[in-house]
């Protein structure tokens, strides 16, 4: 592998890792702060992708506006969902959480099938991001992929600022470490959880919307994302945003270079990484830090 190819592969790895981070950050927030194992998180990713498919004809080239509208819709959806379903789950066992969130996956898949059908659909790339630039002799790299990476970096920075620099972030961190204490200080933990959950759903949906023009929308697209996101959350340390970022990039690199160098074993590469990290640090890389 020459240097140019190596650099392109690094770019691929970072880009994949960043997109993973966007989905996984929502999962780690909900899991770490609220203690709910949310198997339906992949469905929120799917929801975002189908939202992009549904909204694209109305917004045309106003891609940013569309993302904003989609984020608001999905946050609202998450808010209601927490109210109706998840708020009853905090005191229950993990098994019951798993059962209910699994049921939600089935419900979402069936709803998707009834509303949109089972065909694969493409989502158009906004025309101002449609081109590509040359990279190496034969290959070109689409501007849209670069845009997706930039959007993910911006979001990661924003998320970091909210969690570490704002009052809301302080409450979230406090709620994660001691629920009872926060409540006795007069903070409405119920509302706090509702906001965190809505934010988590919005993050996953946003990732789905950003990924949609690259990946198209198709049945079951949430499933594979969910598994890899759990891997990221476990490697990074449950509840840690920074951990999720580091783990996403690690997974991106292992997956990308695994495919190139060890094609036969590439399916187990990231799981091997997870096993090694768990042996080395059973709590994940950054457990207990935001």
């Amino acid at each position: 592998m020459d240097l140019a190819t190596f650099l392109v592969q690094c770019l691929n790895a970072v880009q994949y890792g960043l997109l993973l981070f966007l989905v996984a950050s929502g999962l780690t927030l909900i899991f770490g702060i609220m203690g709910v194992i949310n198997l339906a998180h992949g469905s929120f990713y799917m929801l975002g992708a189908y939202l992009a498919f549904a909204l694209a004809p109305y917004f045309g080239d106003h891609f940013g506006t569309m993302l904003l509208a989609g984020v608001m819709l999905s946050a609202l959806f998450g808010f209601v969902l927490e109210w109706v379903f998840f708020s009853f789950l905090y005191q229950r066992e993990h098994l019951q959480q798993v059962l209910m969130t699994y049921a939600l996956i089935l419900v979402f898949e069936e709803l998707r099938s009834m509303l949109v059908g089972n065909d694969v659909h493409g989502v158009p790339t906004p025309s101002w991001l449609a081109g590509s630039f040359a990279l190496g002799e034969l290959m070109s790299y689409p501007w849209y992929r670069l845009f997706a990476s930039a959007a993910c970096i911006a979001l990661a920075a924003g998320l970091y600022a909210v969690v570490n620099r704002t009052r809301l972030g302080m409450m979230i961190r406090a709620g994660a470490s001691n629920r009872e204490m926060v409540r006795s200080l007069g903070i409405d933990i119920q509302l706090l959880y509702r906001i965190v959950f809505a934010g988590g759903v919005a993050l996953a949906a946003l990732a789905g919307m950003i990924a949609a023009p690259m990946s198209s929308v198709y049945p079951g697209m949430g499933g594979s994302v969910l598994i890899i996101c759990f891997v990221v959350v476990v490697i990074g340390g449950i509840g840690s945003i920074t951990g999720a970022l580091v783990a996403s990039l690690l997974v991106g690199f292992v997956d990308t270079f695994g495919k190139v160098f060890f094609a036969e074993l590439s399916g187990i590469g990231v799981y091997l990484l997870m096993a090694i990290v768990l042996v080395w640090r059973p709590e994940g890389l950054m457990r207990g830090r935001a």
Partner: protein
Amino acid sequence: MKIVSKLAAAAALCAAAAAHAQGGAPVKVGFMLPYTGTYAALGNMIENGFRLYVQEQGGKLGGREVQFVKVDDESEPSKATDNVNKLIKRDTVDVLVGTVHSGVALAMAKAAKESGTLLIIPNAGADAITGPMCGNNIVRSSFSNWQPGYAMGVVAAQRGHKRVMTITWNYAAGAESVKGFTEGLEKGGGKVAKDLTLPFPNVEFQALLTEIAAQKPDAVYAFFAGGGAVKFVKDYAAAGLNKTIPLYGPGFLTDGTLEAQGSSAQGLLTTLHYADNLDTPRNNAFRKSFALAYKQNADVYAVQGYDAAQLLGAGLAAAKGDLSKKDVIGAAMRKATVDSPRGKFTISPAGNPVQDIYLREAKGLNNEFKSVVVKALSDPARGCKM
């Protein structure tokens, strides 16, 4: 009162006996197809195709009425054995028809072998079904994964490609298709430089596309289906590779996915045993009556279902409707020439269609017929001992 009911029973018995004389009880056909999930549409197409042929024959095959039973296989291999036993033991079907998913079809073939029930496979392409798993009571109306792959290998060699790379998911269907391609290509003097694989159903192709760009082969052969096919074709074009390195694949790369693939799939060459616009009187008539009956356009799956019914009809006719003569039925299906909308085909001793494979070009929303690549291509049926 008692006498009246006895009389009625006697009358009913007479009527039943009369019906028996006219051709016996109905033939029970058990559809084991996906009616939910990703492949639901395919399952319906196959069933509609099958029913259309039976309807055209006046509701009878081999002189006997046909009765249908349905089980949803959910494309779930872990439930396949239970599902197929429901049809064989609970519903006591005479003929099994199914299915789309290869893993499920392999379980059906195993059950059919053990129970001796007739099995007609209207889609699943696993080579093993007409290879090591073959049996006199098992035939397929679709294709083996090897067939379109081999034909594309022939095309790639004819077009002068010497060094080709292949890419697919790391699973049986992909490996079988690539093996067929490699054989076709090597026969024409080409060579596969490298086989790229990624785990199913992973769709992160970017790393492997970069690898292709670094290796600069003459052409690329890809086996993907559904959402993966859409994403691969789009990513390939977005990476600019389609301008310098031609992409080839079996029909699954562009079948039912052209709308989602948009401009990135236009002009793609694929091989399959059917093309959307085959302009033959047989195909036109079939498509017309299918559209009339079901208010939708026929596709390759409808053809495969239709031909499954034709095969059963040929078998039953030879046995004069006597289902106990399984040997006669099995042999007759292998002797039949099926007048399919895809063109006439026969069945190999192993039970797989011996059929023409077409080169098609993606234009608009159709995979248009370009030429016949191989006439009467027969699967090698490796491992089949009859």
